């Protein structure tokens, strides 16, 4: 009988699930907003991913959870931190990558990895939300634009604006006053992207940036942030097709390894 494995990643803004087979091939995935109930979001993501993979719940031989709600996922037989899971996931998608930048909902991290996704060092932002997905969300709403269109709008910037702060509270009022001073939304949006990039590079340098650099997490879909990061780092950044599901993929691969080790 073929065995399948699932990874569930429940973060503060979104929940993801990924299904893999025994060879680590991805068969289906799902991305959903976390909402108020992380447990439920995790269950729903798993159900949806299974449906897309055309599988029944019973076909899954092992589940590993990750993300902030990793201890609360009823379906999971074990859990791993996001750091290990992102490392594992990236090693599968972009095996050459040696540094990972992950900007998630409420934290950003930099991870330096060896071959196979072994974590050599990592750093995470301190507890303020500066430079995270949450920061972008607040700023997008202050600008009156959607999060999905943020990157594209920002890439249309013309003038060079520099924000004086990345503190979410202060930046929000700065954005509001920039808008009222008549600055173009695109210029402000790019300034925000650059502010995130500056903060993130500071974080990444704590672990030492070794190329190739890969990026995971929802913010990797924001092309303006990626571009600003590339400028700040002075190197290209590889982004997997679905950067949001890297953590869940890593978790699924850990579930598979776990069962393989158990069968040895």
């Amino acid at each position, binding site marked *: 009988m073929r065995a399948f494995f699932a990874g569930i990643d429940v973060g503060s803004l979104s929940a993801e699930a990924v299904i893999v087979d025994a060879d680590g091939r991805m068969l289906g995935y799902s991305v959903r907003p976390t909402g108020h109930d992380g447990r439920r979001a995790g269950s729903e993501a798993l159900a949806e991913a299974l449906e897309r993979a055309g599988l029944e719940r019973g076909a899954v031989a092992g589940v590993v959870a990750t993300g*902030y709600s990793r201890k609360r996922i009823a379906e999971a037989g074990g859990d*791993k*931190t*996001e*750091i*290990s899971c992102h490392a594992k996931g990236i090693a599968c998608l972009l095996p050459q990558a040696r540094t990972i930048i992950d900007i998630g909902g409420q*934290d950003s991290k930099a991870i330096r990895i060896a071959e196979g996704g*072994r*974590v*050599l*060092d*990592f*750093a*995470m932002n*301190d*507890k303020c939300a500066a430079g995270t997905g949450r920061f972008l969300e607040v700023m997008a709403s202050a600008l009156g634009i959607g999060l999905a269109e943020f990157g594209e709008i920002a890439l249309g910037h013309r003038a060079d604006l520099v924000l004086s702060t990345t503190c979410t509270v202060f930046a929000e009022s700065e954005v509001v006053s920039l808008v009222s001073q008549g600055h173009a939304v695109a210029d402000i949006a790019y300034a925000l992207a650059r502010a995130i990039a500056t903060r993130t590079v500071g974080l990444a340098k*704590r672990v*030492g940036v070794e190329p190739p650099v890969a990026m995971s997490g929802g913010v990797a879909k924001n092309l303006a942030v990626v571009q600003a990061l590339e400028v700040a780092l002075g190197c290209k950044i590889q982004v997997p097709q679905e950067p949001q599901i890297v953590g869940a993929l890593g978790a699924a691969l850990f579930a598979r390894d776990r069962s393989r080790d158990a069968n040895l």
Partner: protein
Amino acid sequence: MTKLASTSKMKEIMGTYYLEAKNAAHNGLKVAWVTSGAPVEYLHAVGAIPIYPENYAAMCGASHATAELLRKAESLGYAGELCSYARSDFGAEALQGGPLMGLPRPDFLVCASNICNTVTKWYQVLSRHFQVPLFLVDMPFVHDDISEEMVAYVKGQFAGLEEFLAEIMGRPFDRDRFSEAVLQSARATELWREVLEMGKARPAPLNSFDTFIHLAPIVTLRGTPRAVEYYTALVEELRERVSRGEGSIPNERIRLLWDNLPIWYRIKYLADFLANWGAVPVVATYTNSWALIGDVQLEGRDDLAGALARAYLSPFINRGVRYRIEYLCRMIEEFSLDGFLMHSDRTCKPYSLTQLPVKEEVQRRTGKPGVVLEADKVDETAFVEAAITTRLEAFLESVLCRN
């Protein structure tokens, strides 16, 4: 936490100490508030009772009594960015609150800057508040090596301290009692070092969380026979544990170092969390500092003040990055460690602000991973449990992956 018979003995002698201090005025004794790195041997020489506001703030933290004190300090205008020990004590003084309903009022203050410049500001506030004299012993930060000139500078001030004490106590400084106190300090320090070095055993008979607790007598009773008595018994108990092969946790797999002050209100939580992974800190830069400051070379007894000055300049927090890096690398080697934990204490700048580049360099030299935990020694609002556990778990996963 490791179950040690000595723990109840310690609680007893600490209780007696605070009781005596509370009754000092009643018994005609003078009380001095002093910093944890003050040359307390001088106070024992004149029979003054030293009180340690830092130790008290830590006690408040460990018994979860801090939040109210910090709120009070804030209402007095002390910003949240200031040392949370100082704020706790300001709050406790204003409320006469905390575990002992506040500390006994000081007759005078002795502050030594070998642990930070913060204490200088803190004791200025105390001096204004209580309207009592303050003697400030300036012990400069040691950027490179402890030089003879630096020792001479501190020694000169010790001479000034003698005069200050003679005047306050209204009698000449007693040199014999001073020699006796230095001797007692040196003995207790030697025993404390023995306690800490037990961590080298595999499995370690006690861990850093235990040493945080058993530190109290070396801080507060250093210079008295009580500290010597206490640590003699503790060493004995630990030797037996080592000979029985008894570890501080059931299944010791990962041996770590703890850098910076404890997170007092989460000691048990962190101990249990790590123990679940078979991980245990067996050495700490913080507790080791009291194996340095009383470390008077007794062969230099003709110049006790000089030996004392040198010892008091030496704690880890008073040293530059080159020393810190070498020290951490040496501990990793000597205690056979798998990695190190760095508590980044947001209101302790001198301990914390070098940690990021030091971590990098120690990792590079030893190949052992470290992790930075953002929190605060006693301010519980700085501890975000989900963030701490994620960092710790990721760190432990990577340590296991290497082993």
